[in-house]
């Protein structure tokens, strides 16, 4: 019975990270209709930024979060404005492959700079934990969850309370009307992509504290991001959060009962069930 609660907590803790990763992914997909296969690579870049800042300046990863966000935002903005923009309205195959190629490029540049060996961040509080009844909660993972929730809340405020946020939502609803209202769509698209990258970078910092770092670490997150988006509902911040937490729990129990090696199989089954039973996801709005 203890194991059940420990699995539940493990799932929630992991789910926070999934939520932030999915948030950026969902933003780009929902608003620009682009599935960014380089999203995992962006997460990886965030993790490596945290690693560099930690090993060179002993900067605690939590402080690196906003730094990584800003750096990755700039990077994402540039990538969209000057590369992806050329194919932003092309058929799906083109954008799929372009983002795949970008991912390959990014991963290999990191490989050349940092080499393939596994790196990790070990802070002074890594391993420290507290107990909650029968459950042991590692401090690092707990603080990660808090950070993830904070990021989600901030994003929601941004989307609803700021002018840019409203411009973004207008563009996603009707691009023609938005242009007529004076929205510079190319700029908005670049901002959206930059936000997606920034969120991925922030998530990467969170990931770096609990997982080990290598250039290919971002790959598994793409499928998970996709499933979380479908599960939670595309186009909403709450959707990404709920989807992330639910998926984290599902994966935790799934690994325990079916076998740790079958995480992606679990993801796929969840995906297929959702697509058949409730395609709009838990929090999604029914579309025509």
């Amino acid at each position: 019975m203890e194991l059940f609660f420990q699995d539940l907590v493990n799932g929630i803790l992991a789910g926070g990270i999934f939520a932030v990763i999915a948030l950026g992914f969902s933003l780009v997909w929902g608003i620009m209709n682009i599935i960014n296969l380089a999203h995992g690579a962006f997460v990886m870049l965030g993790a490596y930024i945290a690693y560099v800042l930690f090993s060179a300046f002993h900067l605690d990863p939590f402080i690196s979060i906003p730094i990584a966000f800003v750096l990755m935002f700039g990077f994402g903005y540039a990538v969209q404005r000057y590369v992806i923009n050329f194919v932003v309205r092309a058929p799906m195959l083109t954008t799929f492959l372009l983002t795949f190629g970008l991912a390959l490029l990014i991963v290999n540049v990191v490989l050349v700079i940092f080499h393939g060996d596994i790196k990790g961040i070990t802070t002074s509080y890594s391993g420290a934990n507290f107990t909650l009844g029968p459950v042991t909660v590692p401090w690092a993972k707990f603080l990660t969850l808090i950070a993830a929730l904070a990021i989600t809340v901030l994003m929601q405020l941004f989307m609803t309370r700021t002018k840019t946020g409203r411009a973004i939502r207008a563009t996603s609803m009707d691009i023609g009307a938005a242009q007529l209202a004076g929205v510079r769509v190319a700029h908005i698209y670049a901002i959206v992509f930059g936000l997606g990258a920034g969120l991925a970078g922030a998530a990467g910092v969170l990931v770096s504290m609990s997982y080990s770092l290598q250039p290919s670490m971002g790959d598994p997150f793409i499928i998970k991001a996709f499933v979380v988006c479908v599960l939670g509902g595309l186009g909403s911040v709450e959707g990404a959060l709920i989807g992330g937490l639910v998926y984290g729990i599902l994966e935790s129990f799934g690994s325990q009962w079916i076998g740790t090696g079958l995480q992606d199989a679990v993801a796929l089954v969840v995906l297929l069930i959702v697509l058949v039973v409730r395609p709009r996801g838990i929090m999604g709005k029914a579309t025509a």
Partner: protein
Amino acid sequence: MKNSRIAAICAAALVAVLALPATVTPAAADDSTIVFGAALAATGRDSREGALTRDGYEFWKDYVNSHGGIKVGGKTYKVAIEYADDETNPQTAARLVEKFISQDKVNFILGPYGSPNSASAAAVVERYKVPMVEGNGSAEKIFNQGFKYTFAVLSPARRYLEFVIDMALHQKDKPKTVAIVSANDAFSIEVAAGANDYALAHGLKVVYNSKYPADTTDVSGIVSAIKATNPDLILNGGHLQDAILLQRGFKEQNVNAKVFAYSVGPDTPDFRKTLGKDADYVFGGTQWSPTAKYKGAPGFITDSKVYAAEFAKKYGHIPDYHNAESSATCLAFQYAIEKAGSLDPQKVRDALASLDVVTFYGLLKFDDRGINIYKPMAVNQIQNGELKTVWPTGVQNAQPIYPTPDWSKR
């Protein structure tokens, strides 16, 4: 429609692909150098271990070249080693080995790191009938295929953790239960199987035995499950990355046991560096230790302590068993070539098959499958940040600290 242009493209591409090999110049295979080809991981999951292997090969090469080279028949030859990155990918390893043999025309092949890569390289050398000696792929599966041209100087994977259990059984406060967890790859599976069988044969109860994907990044579920079974011994078959993740996970979830043991990890400097104090008290199975008391045959360093000192002088750290077994790999070739008195692949292969020589690393002798079942393994433990050999008593330079103190008491 420009048909001719399409034909031109096709023809150009065809010619380009055919002409490619000509652009890559093979190693200068001159008359007085023995050339070895080595496909090693410089990138990918096993890149650290690949680097350790390479250092072991290079150390041997530099020693041999500065001490007159290898005598073949009446002539003395220098040694050269060609390296290529197999990206921790078995297919790439096979392609590289094939290229070494058919394009670059090397004399012999030194094995890659890791069992999958060794397995796929073994298939290639078998086809071309060129002998290969390896020191880093211990899965017995490789040697149950009936191959005649592959030899391994290291003890089989199954043995890695057996002596850890043996050590625990010889202490007061004997263990009763064992938890085994392993990565889902050939080497780790065999380590786990060996540990499992040994434990059962010696009256221990195996309370947990499961596998995780080889490139896993999150082990919290496994750690929780192990904790729930409350084992006395926790044994892991895997590689450096998983060892670090697991040890960290055990601290995070406050899992205590009498023994934490890993097949790969504790011996490498990176394990101790990354985990710091959390690495203390961890046990590891080892193929070799600087405390080994073998007296090697002439032609190379005869004493383990001297090998360790010379290696440390050159590379800045005490050699771990990966370094040593890689040097031993080359040693096997050295003695076999001298015994055969020729560079003919067949003769060298036969000399390898009948090799029987003691080295600083241990006895180099292969059974009829090609693997070295004649060399025993030992157990190391990290004590206060330093690696000590603690079992068997014949080679120990420190007593094992058993049982491992609780996390809260450290």
